Structure formats: C-alpha cells, structure tokens
C-alpha cells in the first residue's frame, strides 16, 4: 500500500548519502506509523548508499527493517506511514514523488525482486504476459515487447523461450520462475535492482544458480543492486559493501570481504558465530540469547544492549553514533573489544 505524502516530511539534510550519481541514496530515513501515544517507530536514521554498478548487502534478522528499507526506494511505504529523511533514486526524490512520478520511476529506474517467485507472478496469466507487462507499461509496442521478452528469457537460461511465453506459472519450478522474475526485473533496464531475499524460497541447488545469474546480469547491465538477505555468508561473498541492520537501525557498514575477518559490532560477530560454516573448523554454533527486537520494543540507548555480552551502563544512555573502526563504520561504544 502506498502511503499518502505527508507535510511532516523534512528535506534531506545536506551531507546526506544521496548524490546524483548514486543509484540509491537513503539518508537518515525514519519511518513511523500511528500518531501521538500510539506511534510505532519502524526505522530510525537509516542511511544506505548504492553506487552505480555496485552490489550492496543489507543484512539482519527478520523484523530488523531491511525489507522496509528496500521498499522505501520504490516509494512503497506501509499504509499511513510518515517518513522523515531522504530517499533518492538516480537523483529523483522518492518521498516527494507523486503517483505519476513514482509510477514512471518504477517503470524505468528501479526494479524489485521479491522472495517468493510463485507469489510474485499472477497465477492465472501467462509468463509472456508477465514479461511484456513491464515493457508495455514503458510504452514498448506489443510486437517489440514480445521480441524483447523472448530475448530476455533466453538470456536468463530458460529453455524453449517461445513455448515458455505461452505457459502458466504453475508449469515451472521455483528456480525457473525466479529466472523469469529476474528477466522481468531487468527488462526495463533499471539503474537499481532491489533483491529482497531472492533465493530464500528456493532449493539450495538452485540458489547458487540464481545468484550467479543475478550477478552476471547485473554486471552485463551495469545495474546497482541492493541485496537484502539474512545470510551473512552470502552477503559477504557477493557484496562490495554490507550494511548490518538491527531493530530498525544500521549498526555496521563494512566492506563485504572484511566482515568475516573483522566484525566491528557485537551483533555482527554474534550473527557470524550463530551461522554454521563449512569453511572454518568445527567451531561451536552459538545462538544469540534473547530474541530479535523491533524498533518499537527496543531498549533505550543501544538497541542490542539487552542481548549484548559487552554491554555496560553507558550503553543505555544514548544511541551510539556511527564511527570508523578498521574498515567499518560502527554504531558501538567499544568495537575494539569485538575486534581489536
């Protein structure tokens, strides 16, 4: 559901992350629904930047607000939500955009790939209809759209593209459908691709194929990608930079590769220790105590402090500001105790 524009929105502050050259610039985005006493905050001060052709990961547990952040790039905010901060896609101010501007933005500059391809495609319409719908919306004539769709299906590795055009979603496997969705997302040659856990609903064996395809297509088209996932290993493997989210806030920004070697936030380290790895030794898998928090129910100060082994009294006072530590920007008072 689209939120109505509200006058409460503030202009993007100067020095925010969004510049004209970036595919996506989210600067100090805060989101809340409800008013007064019953106000529920969803996101606080989220700053995310995706350069052209860059792959950026957005990692966190469910409920941390990563899907919400990704959707804000499309202007798809929860019904009745109020936003402050700035969201720009290729220089277009998304939060200020009206119905037409948003529609045109979605048609030409941003595409989103959702988690479950089977739910993403209308089950009663043909694959060909799905692919040409995006193209036709851009004004491509019917015949041209059909030709482009055929070409795209070939590119994403669907056998017999001609036959596939006339078939229905239930005749395809999940992996094949996600390929169709990727083809649909790239059909409009977007500058920004939002991938919201695109492999979570797929078999392990098809996951690698879909990721490979996604990266390959992204390289070929020079598209910037925001890759939303809960899989830290995957994010570190394919992303240039990774943002780690917890309770509606970004807690760490780090270069993809260095995330493993030098996590700066206790939450990042805890996530790494909680995920089994086939590469390292048989290290013990440590579950994070407590349960993940939403922003609305997070404790004061650092939201992670009630689950953090390093937390002290000063963590309760203010939300820690982002500061550099190693190759990371981290919102923690004592990152040196996580990785010296």
């Amino acid at each position, binding site marked *: 559901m689209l939120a109505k524009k509200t006058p409460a929105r503030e202009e993007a502050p100067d020095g925010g992350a969004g510049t004209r050259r970036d595919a996506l610039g989210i600067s100090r985005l805060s989101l809340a629904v409800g008013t007064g006493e019953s106000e529920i905050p969803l996101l606080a001060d989220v700053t995310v930047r995706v350069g052209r052709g860059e792959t950026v990961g957005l990692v966190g547990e469910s409920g941390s607000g990563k899907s919400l952040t990704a959707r804000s790039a499309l202007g798809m905010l929860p019904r009745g939500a109020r936003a402050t901060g700035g969201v720009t896609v290729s220089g277009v101010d998304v939060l200020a955009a009206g119905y037409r501007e948003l529609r045109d933005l*979605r048609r030409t500059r941003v595409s989103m790939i959702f988690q479950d391809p089977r739910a993403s495609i209308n089950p009663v319409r043909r694959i060909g209809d799905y692919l040409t719908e995006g193209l036709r*919306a851009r004004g491509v004539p019917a015949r041209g759209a059909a030709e482009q769709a055929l070409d795209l299906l070939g590119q994403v590795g669907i056998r*017999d593209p001609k036959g596939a055009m006339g078939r229905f979603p239930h005749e395809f496997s999940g992996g094949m459908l996600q390929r169709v969705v990727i083809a649909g997302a790239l059909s409009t040659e977007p500058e920004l691709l939002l991938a919201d856990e695109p492999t979570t609903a797929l078999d392990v064996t098809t996951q690698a194929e879909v990721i490979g395809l996604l990266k390959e297509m992204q390289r070929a088209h020079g598209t910037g990608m925001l890759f939303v996932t809960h899989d830290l290993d995957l994010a570190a493997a394919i992303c240039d930079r990774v943002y780690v989210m917890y309770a509606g806030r970004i807690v760490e920004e780090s270069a993809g590769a260095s995330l493993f070697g030098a996590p700066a936030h206790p939450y990042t380290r805890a996530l790494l220790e909680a995920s089994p790895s086939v590469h390292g030794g048989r290290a013990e898998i440590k579950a994070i105590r407590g349960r993940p928090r939403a922003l609305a129910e997070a404790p004061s100060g650092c939201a992670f402090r009630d689950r953090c082994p390093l937390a002290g009294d000063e963590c309760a006072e203010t939300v820690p500001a982002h500061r550099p530590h190693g190759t990371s920007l981290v919102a923690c008072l004592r990152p040196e105790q996580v990785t010296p």
Partner: protein
Amino acid sequence: MKRTRADRAGKRAFAGWIGKRVLGGILTVLLASVLIYGALRLVPGDPVLAMTGGRRLTPDQIEALRHRHGLDRGFVQGYLAWIGDALRLDFGMSTNYQTSVTSLITNRLGVSGPLILYSAVLAVVSGLAVALVSAVKGGLVNRAAGMAAAVTTATPTFVSAIGLLALFSVGLGWFPATGAGTGLADRLWHLTLPAVAMAIVAFGVLARVGNAAFAEELRREHVEVARSRGVGAAAVIRRHVVRNALAPMLTIVGLLFASLFVGTAVVETAFGLDGVGSLLVSSVSRRDFPVVQGIALIAVLLFVVVNTLVDLAMPFIDPRVALGGAGR
C-alpha cells in the same frame, strides 16, 4: 516434439473431463426427475382425489384420470412413460387449462425469460460494481457497502416487491403495477419493478461475496509486485484483481441465475405477471400436477446446465484448475 505429444494427451484428457462433467449433469437431472415424479405418488391418499379436490366423479371418470396420468401402471412403468415423453419435451396435458404443458410453459417464458435476464443483469452489474469499489476504497465506503449488502440480503422479495409497488407505482406513478406490456420498450418498462424486486437479494449476495473475493485478490503479493513495476492503478485492478476474482464470481452468478428462476414465483404473483412463476403458484394451488412437474423439471435442468457450463469454463479462467478434478 515433446510438447505436441503432451498436447495431444492433454486434449484427450480434456475431452474425457468434459464427458464426465456432462454425464454427471445428466445423472443429476435423472435423479431429480425420479424425485419429481415420485412426489405425485407421495401425495397422501389417492393422487386423483387430491387433483380433483374432492369433487364428485363417477368411477369411470376416475379411471380415465388414473389412466391419463399413468397411475394405473406401476411406479417404474409410469415413470418411464413420463420421462420418455418429457425427453421429447412433452409433459402431458394440464388438468386445469386442458392444453399441453409444453405450450403453456413456452408461452409464459416470453415474460419470465426477459424478467430473469433483466434482473440478473441488474444484480450482477450493481452488485459487482459496489463490491469492487468498496474493496478498493476500504474504510467508510467499505462499511457502508457491507451494511447495504446485509440489509438487502435480509429483505424478503415479497417485502421489497410491496415496497417498490407502494413507492414507484402507487405513490410516484412512474411504473405500472401490473401487466407485462407489449413490444420491447413497453415490456422493459413493465418489467423494471419486478426485476428490481428480484435483483435486490441477489445484489446483496453479490456485493458481499464479491467484496470478499476482490479484497482477497487485492492482498495478493503479485498485486503489490505489479504496482512495484509501475503498472497503472486501473490496469492493476483490471488484470490482477478483477481477472483473478472471475472464477469465484462466475460460480456465484451461475447459482444466482437458477435461484432467480425460482424467485419468479413470488415476484410474478405480486406484480400480476403471466409468467412461469405465477403459473407454478396457481398450478400448485389447483393441483395441476403435470404443470408442476414440468416446471420443476425445467428448473432442475436450468440449474444443472448453467452449473455445468460454469464448471466447463473454469479451466479457461483459472489454468490451475486441473482437468479431471485432481487439484494442485
């Protein structure tokens, strides 16, 4: 190559599936016909006495009546004779009008047919329009539509018929109170109030069920995905909401059509129309069994034909409806 073989197998399966549906329909009609015929035999006492309503008859006359209605034969033989004639569209002679039941019914279909169609169009157009608008708008509009649906569903047809008569024909004088009119325009004018009276309950049912179906489709993820791709709002509603709600809607409309046929009994009596419905009512009170049986059989036939057609249309509307009933 594989595809064509699969196609051929698919076509064979499809033909078999159609055959099964049609056969099922025929069996339903036959079963119902046994019950309809049996009802005559279930009349307490002697059916002939029930028919004549206690008038004094000579034994010869009684015997003639018994013979004419096949009552002198056994149940099976009598049924076979009756259904055999019915298959040739011969439902016997009306005891009241002394003419053939078939011509009696077909003459009156000239009133009831347009009335049912008129009423169905009114109910479907208004019901689905209200359902769609209320589902899309939500909030107050949705609540108001929900209340309207509840009130109209709960209003018996005879009450709305009397209300409409009092307001529009006695009070305002816009529409005639009785008669079916001659010529197309005049007939439409005469049939408007009866059609509205019949459509009111159907409107409520469609508005309510349609609202639920549209609301459900609106919540689907592919609708959100279509919006995220910049598909215009109207196209999203048309291609992803209305299109997907067609299947449940068609089922309801099919059921409604048959219930409107039965609904003519009340409305035609209230508005003094010489249709099949009023014929049914008068024939029941005059114990004109051949007419009652004929109309009952036609109602069942209509019901089964419409629903079989709806069933047959399903795989074309929703490709996931697997042929042969094995759902995904």
